[in-house]
């Protein structure tokens, strides 16, 4: 009797194991679909750098999934997964991208689900692999897309060829205060700055392994530094000094308007610890903000608008894009102020001007009005070709939701930008290729080990800045800085 039970249990075990084994070994799907697979994130037809991390993806609501990656019709890599997740092995992915650079990879996805128990094979889609590589790291701030307070925030760095994310600084070093506005000199991870607000706050400078904290609010003209950009030669940092407020709106639509009630330009000299001002950019009748150097350091671009009563005047607040010459040998700004884009003539309001490293293109965020586009659903990225001041087509990288902060790669071939296109609230990072003729490829979402991470992460990505390497600041030194040791 006992023996019979043991035999039955053994037979059941073998049967179960066999069944499980069968369900795991995915063969060819029995059905074929003429539509593209409903994968998340939206990777079909995007252009990717040769050194990017695997584009893992998911098809929701399915059990088994298989993806064949083909080059010239030959299957180079075949990945199967469970619960709809394609988790591409890092080593094979890198090898495949090396082979595919300058070509397209055809991706054929099959899924198995209750609806299609024998599997369904979808129409293959393409991914274009550019031979242009992207900088090794991107840094960003992670913070709840909130209103007034936060729990934990920090500035983080992500290695782009893997999924590794590390903190550069978190707000446990400054008593949960705000950390913001990180900036690098020429993509260098060894020369950077950021602001820390609250207890023991100040502007933290990290240069060649040394940390320093300065308080711009008590230096020279005593103006708080806000939006920064490090001069390419390294001596100066341009800041706007903004008195920022916010207003909340009650019913639907854009819930918040963030605005300044004053803003000026200042230049900090890192060698003399002094602040340079120019009366033209300190007067109250005009507001200046978002300074950006040209790659040769000879021009300072910035946004500027006539001051008005805020927040009621927000609809009439339109920022122009201007530039002024700069002489790095004297630290003085030139006499002529050029208007690059006039809001009176062309409408809208400009934020975050950024010039490509080759000096050929200027990208900015254009909203209908005001200065803080992240809460403007209509905000898009726009690009001017500086040789003839013509606007080039950037429709491929924009969406019906807000596009906002952006930065160029050091090669000028890639742009990383924040967008709220996934859900309308949480900014995520997208990377787009721009070829030598100024044409954009379809952008792709920053890859994650599990794409669901984009949904589960309850923080927004702020201020993506590409860097050539990893920032290495010791946390203990940062703590000492805030404890004034």
């Amino acid at each position: 009797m006992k023996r019979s039970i043991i035999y039955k249990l053994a037979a059941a075990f073998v049967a179960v194991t066999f069944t499980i084994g069968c369900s795991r070994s995915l063969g060819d799907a029995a059905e074929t679909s003429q539509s593209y697979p409903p994968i998340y994130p939206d990777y079909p037809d995007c252009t990717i750098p040769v050194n990017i991390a695997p584009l893992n993806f998911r098809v929701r609501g399915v059990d088994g999934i298989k993806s064949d990656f083909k080059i010239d019709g030959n299957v180079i890599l075949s990945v199967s997964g469970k619960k709809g997740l394609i988790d591409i092995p890092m080593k094979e992915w890198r090898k495949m991208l090396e082979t595919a650079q300058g070509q397209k990879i055809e991706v054929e996805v099959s899924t198995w689900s209750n609806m299609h128990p024998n599997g369904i094979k979808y129409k293959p889609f393409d991914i274009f692999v550019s031979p242009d590589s992207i900088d090794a790291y991107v840094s960003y701030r992670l913070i709840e897309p909130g209103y007034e307070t936060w729990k934990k925030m920090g500035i983080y760095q992500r290695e782009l060829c893997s999924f590794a994310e590390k903190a550069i600084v978190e707000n446990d070093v400054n008593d949960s205060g705000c950390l913001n506005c990180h900036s690098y000199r020429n993509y260098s991870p060894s020369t950077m700055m950021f602001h820390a607000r609250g207890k023991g706050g100040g502007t933290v400078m990290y240069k060649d392994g040394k940390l320093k904290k300065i308080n711009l609010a008590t230096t020279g003209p005593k103006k708080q530094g806000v939006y920064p950009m490090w001069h390419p030669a390294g001596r100066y940092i341009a800041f706007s000094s903004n008195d920022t407020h916010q207003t909340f709106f009650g019913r639907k639509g854009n819930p918040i308007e963030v605005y300044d009630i004053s803003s000026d330009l200042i230049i900090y000299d890192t060698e003399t610890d002094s602040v340079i001002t120019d009366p033209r950019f300190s007067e109250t009748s005009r507001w200046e903000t978002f300074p950006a150097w040209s790659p040769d350091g000879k021009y300072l671009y910035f946004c500027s608008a006539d001051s008005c009563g805020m927040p009621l005047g927000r609809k009439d607040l339109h920022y122009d894009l201007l530039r002024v010459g700069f002489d790095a040998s004297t630290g003085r700004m030139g006499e002529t102020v050029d208007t690059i884009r006039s809001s009176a003539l062309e409408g809208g309001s400009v934020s975050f001007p950024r010039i490509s490293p080759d000096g050929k293109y200027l990208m900015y965020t254009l909203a209908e009005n005001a200065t803080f586009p992240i809460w403007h659903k209509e905000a898009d990225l726009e690009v001017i070709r500086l040789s003839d001041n013509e606007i080039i087509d950037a429709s491929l990288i924009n969406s019906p939701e807000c596009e906002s902060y952006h930065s160029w790669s050091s090669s000028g071939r890639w742009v990383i930008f924040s967008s709220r296109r996934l859900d309308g609230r949480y900014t995520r990072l997208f990377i787009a290729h721009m070829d030598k003729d100024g044409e954009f490829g379809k952008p792709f979402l920053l890859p994650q080990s599990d794409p669901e991470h984009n949904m589960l992460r309850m923080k927004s990505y702020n201020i993506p800045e590409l860097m050539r390497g990893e920032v290495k600041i010791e946390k203990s030194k940062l703590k000492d800085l805030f404890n004034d040791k």
Partner: protein
Amino acid sequence: MKRIFFTHSAIILIGVFLLWYVGYPNTLRWMEGISFFSTAPDFVNLQVDLPSDALAYAGAFILQLFRWPIVGALIQAFFAWVIMMSLDVAIYRISGKEWLTGLGFFAVAYYVTCQIDYPNLTESLVWCLISISIMLVSFFVKRKKESPKQDKKSRILFWSVGAGLPLVLTVISIIMVLNRFPKRFSERMFGLEYMAEAKDWNGILKDVTPMDSHSNNVLRRFALLALLETDQLKNQMFIYGISDADDMIFADYDDTELQLFNTMFYEALGVENEIIHQMFQISATSRFGMSFRAMRRMIDSFIRQGDFGLAEKYLIVMNSAPLSRGWVKDKFADMQVARAEPIAVDPHDGEVPVRVKSETPLLSDVVRLVDAYPTNRKYVDLLLCGLLASKDTGKFWEIFRRVAPHVYGLGAKLPAYYEEALLLASREDPSAIQMYPISNERKEAFNRFVKMMDSNQRNMIIPAFPNTYWAYVYGR
């Protein structure tokens, strides 16, 4: 040992279960509401920064069960039982005397009095771990053997110290917890919050009497919100002791519970963005950086607004909390229904600033809402009632003649307070009583009121004209 173990178990399990289930059921739900648990990597990283955080994470997992007060009460009783059982075993093993285990109830009873101060359960888990550790240590101590002889003395000790003392200590601790006024008040407030979330306005008015409302500004706000939602504000608010327009919200408070009340007030007004705003604030300041209650309220708000992208994101996050999956499934179904319905186009989307700094925060908000939505009767009544509460009769008349025609057709019968205010305003501007018919009864009452005022009998006004605007303004 068996009989003492069963006696102690019965005392502690029944006593603590009843304490929580009967005495603090809303506090149990609230504990779940302010906590959050998720298996999402970001949440785990935030929670387990320090080794001690692991206990908070475990506590957060257990707190998911507190959504059902009966389960929460059982768990609270279980914590006390674990401590009791561990100490019983330890004392018995060390002393070898059964009756001595009753002394362990000094610690158990103390824990019971403190348990209500442990909303994250972290401390409860620490208590349990320490008790279990003591028990484990006792296994290494040489055990004393109890004499099998059961004489009269040992029976007395058993029933007095072994069983009687635990019973007395448990009862005392329960009475102490039930008599902690701030906790009792919080329990009542949590009950009101859940009634408000369930839109049980009559329940609130049944709970909060006018006398309660007069004496407590938190209860008053709940009562006034219930009056607003049952369209009785314009007939009842003076009975409930309103003293100012800002009595209806908590204008300058950072306290989570008071902010939570504000979200209910703004929900009543359909000011959805402010619900999200306040919920974000509440979440950001919570122990877990997010809370179940905030998540649920935000998801409901996003579905109401037709913001399905965000609703879906939050539902996916909620789905990473194992015991919320049933709720998530229901909400996905609700969302499917809502998706099929057309979303009303709001011509003033995003155009009405709220919570702008002002001397009169509520009135400022409502003025802007009335300007944007002049035909919304709730807004108009709230504005007019707010002006009455401010005792500014002149301003009331100035605004009334501008806004009332949009919601009260000419010839309509006005609420009693409005008639009374218009009669008062007519002393300065006779046209105040020409826009709408005023009943003869009210006019006669007004004449009596004026005579009383003229004869300097202000102290008689409240008894003579209870629940009137006149008594509110001039009564002593």
